């Protein structure tokens, strides 16, 4: 069986759902950040697979993946700064205790 577009898309969907489960279920905020990175990587796999199998001569999907990587880097930097600031104030990385903005 030749590996085609469907294989890569299903792999990307599996990775995305694992990341989604981690974001929703985990309590440690650093692990939640890791799971967001898993989801972004899964989306990148889907973009590159579409670029390879649907428009092999245009690199649109790969360029979109580059922009996703840029935004993911910015998100990781700001996210970790926020995590460490909250950790300094509250001595905790438990999202159940981060209820400052809850009404």
């Amino acid at each position, binding site marked *: 069986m030749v590996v085609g577009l469907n294989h890569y898309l299903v792999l990307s969907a599996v990775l995305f759902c694992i990341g*989604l489960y981690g974001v929703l279920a985990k309590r440690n905020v*650093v692990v939640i950040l890791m799971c967001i990175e898993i989801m972004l990587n899964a989306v990148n796999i889907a973009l590159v697979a579409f670029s390879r199998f649907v428009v092999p001569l245009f690199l649109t999907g790969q360029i979109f993946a580059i922009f996703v990587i840029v935004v993911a*880097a910015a998100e990781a930097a700001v996210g970790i700064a926020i995590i*460490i600031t909250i950790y300094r104030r509250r001595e905790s990385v438990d999202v159940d205790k981060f209820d400052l903005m809850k009404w």
Partner: protein
Amino acid sequence: MSEIIFWLLAIVSVGAALAVVILRDVFRAALSLVLLFLTIAVLYITLYADFLAVVQILIYVGAISILIIVAVMLTRDVWRGSPSGKLRIPALVVSLLLLGTMVFTVVSTNWETNTEPPLQPTTAAIGTSLFSQNGYIVPVEISAVLLLAAILGAIVLMREKE
């Protein structure tokens, strides 16, 4: 040959992602996240995206995983492990439902695939289309501003208040 490589990569990447979610030790979860990033770089090579594979190794394996490991080490003394919250069962149901929907959609859609051979060295083509005038020059400039804002925001957030 390429099938064997794909299935190997698929098994390793899904296993590493599951390890990130399941492992109790946060540091080991971060290390398996590094393994996941590496397997995704090799997946890009199997998709003929050579430039993107190098970018993946440089940025994800080189920079983002180091950031995450530093964050784990700075916050490690309060907590051993990463327990699941109260929403474990609903989260499992939601992600399995989404997985089922996406797999059904992918399998039942008739994708218009193109059998032409892919562009082989992609670096020059990516550079041309990123920086050419009718290409993606405006998003490139905007992402430069975004990175500057992110750096300034991180510095302002981390500054010690007296």
